[in-house]
């Protein structure tokens, strides 16, 4: 029986099987980036199920007009928790978990730059999530949704003021994000320092895998953009508890100021979410096309550009707020411009596939799905960037459809691809390909069935964040289709979870390099030893393992 982690075997070599308590203790006190990475991903997946259930509740309520499945109070809490959880307690942890696991391995290091800070960051992040969900136990308790926040994930002022948001539900929102934000900043500092300071000899910045580059850009972005949210939340808390007037319109404060601060965080945040998705795609697509990534320097330049430009587009979330024509035009233009490097990346992935020998293993299936769906997402994004068009589409289901195409059709698909790709490395076992196909196809059907119709619901006037709608507006068909899609998505997730559990116990053993890949993590055992590498590698090109496997035709001749 293959051992999950050789550390345990090494430590308890001559003892009996370690007790559950001993194993638990090892995981709780660990500072090993690989274990922390796995805990990040596992906790992210748990909250994925929770937030997915919240979405299912909303879709059941919206399947019929004037439905009474849940009360408006419960629906609004589901709406708020779904968005908040998915962004902060599913997306960020899973992506930072992968970065945690892979960046040190890919740069040829033994661990992250600050292992204890790493552990601290993880536990802060998890504590924030628990704090948010603890809010269900306040006030009336679970029935009626307790004191879970109901102000939307973006908590616009002055709805969040004491006058309009009584009790502590909004404070749970604020504090849980403040706490987990500290965790995000810690991990970003770690990624920054690991990338700049711990690369193995020969790995110049120009020879790092694109995965490392993209997470490096993400780390820099996190350091710049989480702070505006932290600052705004401190301001909100001062308003609510000390009578400050930051967003108090009665005292001359500005509700729009909250929107500016929130979206200065919020827009780059969605790039923080999608860039690691690009990172997964940039590693998986070349390996399964059997070709080097096309245009590495341009991919790096495009990624860095996206990082920079995304800092200047935030007010495209505020086209309807009543900005001046100059303001609206500026942000429309900047938003269109950020689409250019993003498009360049899609073309480079396409060029990587072109002329290759594509193997349709499950990781590649998910990345191909990503390419098609992210194309749709990008195009609806261009539609939204045209400010006058946005005056109609903003705050409607069209926007909901757009960003779910980005985050599910784009990001989640690459996350699934990444799980199938790196699961063998982390566990020493392969996930089942047949179950993987069921997972993929069910999810493609379910996801598109849910979110494609919602574009049309938006275009015929259905606003978002409503707990019900009236018959005779034409919304019914699209909502029924959307709700039907949930069944397929749920089935897909069942296949996925079954695949994971089954493979952990009796998956086929995977060697060090089951996919015939080219980056450093595949040069060590599966799973890697705690110290990662016997001797620190020395590299000469972007694909060290390609050089080893093709000594007659190494990469460093062509880079």
């Amino acid at each position, binding site marked *: 029986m293959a051992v999950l982690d050789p550390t345990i075997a090494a430590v308890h070599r001559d003892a009996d099987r370690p007790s559950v308590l001993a194993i638990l203790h090892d995981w709780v006190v660990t500072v090993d980036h690989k274990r922390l990475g796995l805990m990040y991903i596992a906790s992210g997946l748990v909250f994925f199920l929770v937030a997915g259930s919240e979405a299912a509740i909303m879709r059941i309520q919206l399947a019929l007009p004037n439905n009474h499945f849940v009360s408006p109070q419960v629906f*609004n809490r589901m709406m708020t928790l779904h968005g908040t959880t998915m962004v902060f307690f599913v997306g960020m942890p899973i992506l930072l978990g992968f970065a945690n696991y892979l960046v040190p391995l890919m740069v040829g290091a033994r661990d992250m730059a600050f292992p204890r800070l790493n552990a601290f960051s993880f536990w802060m992040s998890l504590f924030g999530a628990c704090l948010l969900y603890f809010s269900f136990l306040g006030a009336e308790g679970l029935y009626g949704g307790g004191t879970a926040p109901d102000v939307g994930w973006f908590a*616009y002022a*002055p709805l969040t003021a004491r006058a309009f948001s009584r009790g502590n539900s909004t404070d749970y929102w604020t504090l849980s994000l403040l706490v987990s934000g500290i965790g995000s900043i810690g991990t970003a500092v770690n990624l920054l320092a690991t990338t700049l300071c711990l690369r193995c000899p020969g790995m110049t910045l120009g020879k790092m895998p694109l995965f490392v580059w993209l997470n490096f850009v993400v780390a820099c972005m996190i350091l710049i953009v989480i702070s505006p949210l932290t600052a705004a939340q401190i301001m909100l808390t001062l308003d609510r508890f000390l009578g400050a007037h930051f967003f108090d319109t009665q005292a001359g404060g500005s509700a729009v100021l909250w929107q500016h601060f929130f979206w200065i965080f919020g827009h780059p945040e969605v790039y923080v979410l999608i860039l690691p998705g690009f990172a997964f795609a940039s590693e998986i697509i070349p390996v399964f096309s059997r070709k080097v990534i096309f*245009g590495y320097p341009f991919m790096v330049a495009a990624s860095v550009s996206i990082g920079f430009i995304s800092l200047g587009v935030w007010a495209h979330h505020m086209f309807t707020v009543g900005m001046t024509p100059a303001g609206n035009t500026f942000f429309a233009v900047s938003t*269109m411009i950020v689409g250019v490097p993003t498009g360049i990346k899609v073309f480079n992935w396409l060029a990587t*596939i072109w002329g290759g020998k594509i193997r349709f293993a499950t990781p590649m299936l998910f990345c191909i799905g990503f390419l098609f769906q992210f194309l749709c997402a990008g195009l609806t994004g261009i*539609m939204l960037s045209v400010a006058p*068009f946005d005056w109609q589409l903003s705050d409607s289901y069209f926007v909901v459809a757009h960003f779910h195409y980005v985050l599910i059709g784009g990001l989640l698909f690459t996350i699934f691809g990444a799980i199938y790709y790196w699961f063998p490395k982390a566990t020493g076992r392969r996930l089942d390909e047949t179950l993987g196909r069921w997972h993929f196809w069910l999810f493609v059907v379910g996801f598109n069935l849910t979110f494609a119709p919602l574009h049309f619901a938006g275009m015929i006037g259905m606003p978002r964040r409503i707990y019900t709608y009236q018959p005779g507006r034409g919304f019914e068909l699209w909502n029924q289709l959307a709700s039907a899609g949930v069944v397929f998505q749920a089935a897909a997730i069942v296949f996925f979870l079954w695949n994971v559990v089954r493979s952990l116990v009796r998956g086929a053993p995977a060697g060090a390099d089951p996919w015939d890949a080219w980056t450093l993590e595949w040069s060590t055992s599966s799973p890697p030893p705690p110290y990662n590498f016997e001797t620190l590698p020395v590299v000469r090109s972007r694909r060290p393992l390609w050089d080893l496997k093709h000594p007659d035709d190494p990469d460093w001749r062509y880079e």
Partner: protein
Amino acid sequence: MRGAGAAALLAIIGAAAVAIAGDDTTRTSSIFAPVSAPADAVVTAAMLVLAITAGIFVVVGSLLTYGVVRFRQPPDDDGSEPPQVYGSEQIELAWTVIPILIVVVLCLVTARTVYDVQGATRPPGAVDVTVVGHQWWWEIRYPALGIVTANELHVPVSDPANRTPTFLALESADVAHSFWVPRLAGKTDVIPNRRNTMWIEPRETGLFLGQCAEYCGTQHAHMLLRVYVHPRAEFDAWVARQREPAVADASGAAGRHVFETTACINCHTVRGTVATGRFGPDLTHLMSRDTLVAGAAPMTPEALRDWIANPDHVKPGALMPAMQLGATELDQLVAYLVTLR
């Protein structure tokens, strides 16, 4: 699988066309069925954007599909690696320049439409309306005409030769809302301590639906809007009726007494009586409206009775308190309110 996908896509587009056109029982509020100048401007810009994005979708989508099919690993593959292509500066340049050119075109279209809509001048014949957003209803005031109503906006149709658009000033009494009637104009947010303006210029008569489009709390979903566009004469007649003080019908005397001695007058105005409250909707001509409770209930005596007896039952979370009236008082009150034509 690909054929099935294409068929599904066509089916959806077909259904979309039907849904957008509407059938007999559906009153559409599609953004692609504009009847007013600002909404027209949006559709014009939108058509160009849709054409461009459709073109990009076809080109890139086809290349992706072709690439994924054509470059599959052959079943009899010898396991050798294909030629490794590291990049091409010319290609990178091409697919940087072409998108930039597309962006330039889109920028020009966007700027033109933005300045056209936001910079519109107000002709002398324009009607002025102030809309005040509340949780969860719309206060509608015609300052120059001395009219106050709720949730239903009446405007004259605009003749291009003699333009009579309606200019709206948007204010909020509490939190952020958004005024959205898709067939008439794009939405504009309604934000406290900030005065936004927008305009509509309907060229067709009829009833057009909309609703609040900025999450504003529990009953955001029931902040519906009804815009009635009238021929000029009809609009003037409506104005004249609305300007009159409340009808004093003897059949409602008992109910009027209940109204004026209960807390009703703290929140509601009935012009010509002692009721001058501003917190809730103006009830002077309540019966002239087609719906109750910002669209959450029909305008019938039964619905009115249910609402007053227990607002939370009709619109959970509504800020109107249950007035704890006995059955007789309730009947009398409703009998009074139905006289407020």
